[in-house]
């Protein structure tokens, strides 16, 4: 890590977020002008750090599940044996994206109850599309010449997939994961409507008590997290793929 402007900005953003979550009261003077009638300027109905971690955990669990399913499906439909399932898989994944997460919550709550579960389901469905599409494009655009060379040298189908196709598709797959994560960091706030622990709680509390400071805090923490996560996956991506895809 060098001291380039990008790294400085990264460190500053991270420090700001960590500082706010660890010592929120120190930021009280900043938010005080947004409150009326002596309302608390900093969210006081729960620990902000814990809410943030719970929020992050929900998003990450959903992302791991979406990634496993979407990548698996993407691999399956690009094999000769799975090619005929391509339209069906595409339709299913598209439905997951077009169906609003709020509606998924409404459907899921009667089946699995309140709490984290319906939120996980909604985020999982919502996050599938970008990963699936990118996996598929990544695998399909793998140079025919390369695949022929791999087969010609005696790689089995499995060795070819693991040794050639996936590594070459990896930048695109990670790009899909990154997109999916960022979308879901924001989307996860709606989980609080069904009693999932998360930053939505802060926003909803602000809306109910007409406290702009709360709304802003929930929104800012969510936003900073999204930016940092986007950046982190991007760094990971560059690290893994710098050789395969020269700039």
């Amino acid at each position, binding site marked *: 890590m060098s001291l380039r402007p990008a790294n400085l900005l990264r460190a500053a953003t991270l420090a700001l977020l960590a500082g706010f979550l660890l010592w929120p009261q120190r930021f009280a003077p900043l938010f005080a002008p947004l409150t009326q009638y002596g309302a608390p300027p900093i969210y006081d109905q729960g620990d902000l750090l814990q809410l943030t971690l719970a929020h992050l955990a929900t998003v990450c669990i959903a992302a791991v599940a979406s990634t496993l399913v979407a990548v698996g499906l993407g691999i399956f439909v690009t094999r000769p044996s799975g090619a005929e399932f391509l339209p069906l898989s595409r339709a299913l994944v598209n439905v997951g994206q077009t169906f609003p997460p709020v509606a998924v919550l409404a459907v899921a709550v009667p089946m699995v109850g309140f709490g984290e579960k319906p939120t996980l389901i909604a985020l999982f469905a919502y996050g599938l599309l970008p990963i699936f599409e990118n996996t598929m494009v990544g695998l399909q655009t793998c140079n025919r010449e390369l695949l*022929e*060379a791999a087969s*010609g*040298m*005696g790689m089995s189908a499995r060795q070819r997939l693991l040794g050639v196709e996936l590594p*070459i598709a990896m930048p695109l797959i990670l790009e899909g994961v990154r997109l999916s994560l960022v979308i879901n960091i924001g989307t996860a706030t709606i989980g609080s409507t069904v009693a999932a622990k998360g930053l939505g709680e802060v926003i909803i509390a602000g809306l109910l008590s007409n406290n702009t400071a709360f709304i802003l805090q929930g929104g800012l923490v969510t936003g900073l997290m999204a930016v940092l996560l986007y950046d982190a996956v991007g760094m990971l991506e560059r690290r893994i*793929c710098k*050789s395969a895809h020269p700039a």
Partner: protein
Amino acid sequence: MIKVENLRKRYGASTVVDDVTMTVERGRFAVIVGTSGSGKSTLLRMINRLVEPDAGRVLIDGKDTRDEPAHLLRRRIGYAIQGHGLFPHRTVAENIATVPHLLGWSEARIRPRIEELLHAFQLDPAGYAHKFPHQLSGGQQQRVGVARALAAEPAVLLMDEPFGALDPIIRGKAQDDLLAIQRRFGTTIVLVTHDMDEAFRLGDRVAVMSHGRMLQYDRPAALLTRPADPLVARMTGIADRALRLLSLTGAGELATPGAADGPEIPAAASLRDALSELLWRGASAGRVMREDGTVQGQLTIAAIIAHGKPA
């Protein structure tokens, strides 16, 4: 030794390879030449079973290629294609080590092999082993592609237009390198090309294909002097066939020992080049020089002209 027996392949209504039989002796260099769509690539790909034949069989050293799983068969057969097909996410060394890894060679055996190959292809291991393919020039990528195909010491090497993407000067160099490598490792090579000059330059035996049929499979000189089919004569070139014939013989083979004068001609030069040199100098004879700088003998224009007439 590769024996191809009555191979046939159809795609729908069209027969791409039609009853082809050919034998490539151990250590020989066979070139299959034909226009695009002649079935030459399909024929090549049936040897390592990238394409499964509809009829006929392929024997390598007497063993039917269908006796083992296709991917295991292919690990024993080198395969190089146009545009090299190097893995962009692996270094030069890792690319070359592909088949040895698949075969489970130990690192202690792979490392010296990579160095040996890089040296053989005039790539300094220290400078190139850890480069990625995109950091190499086209000619270097192609050399690494051939080195990779030879990595596991295959007895048989199949090449599909390996030099097609190279410019003429680099291609000539690559062809010379390949001949040197073949002599060094004694590999049996089957190479597919549409370039007749390349076929004559490289092949001990040249097969001419058209519309799925093998019109003739013979020594290069025989294709010129005794074409089995008018199409063979047309494809090998009627206007310059005498010169092509001269290009198949080295100056050293025709030199007569004894006193010699006139311009110097390297023994390794073809008669065609020797004739050109003598015409250019306005000389009727030249001195054939061995590589070590000693005089091998005399070569006269008359002798060259006599050789350019089919026996």
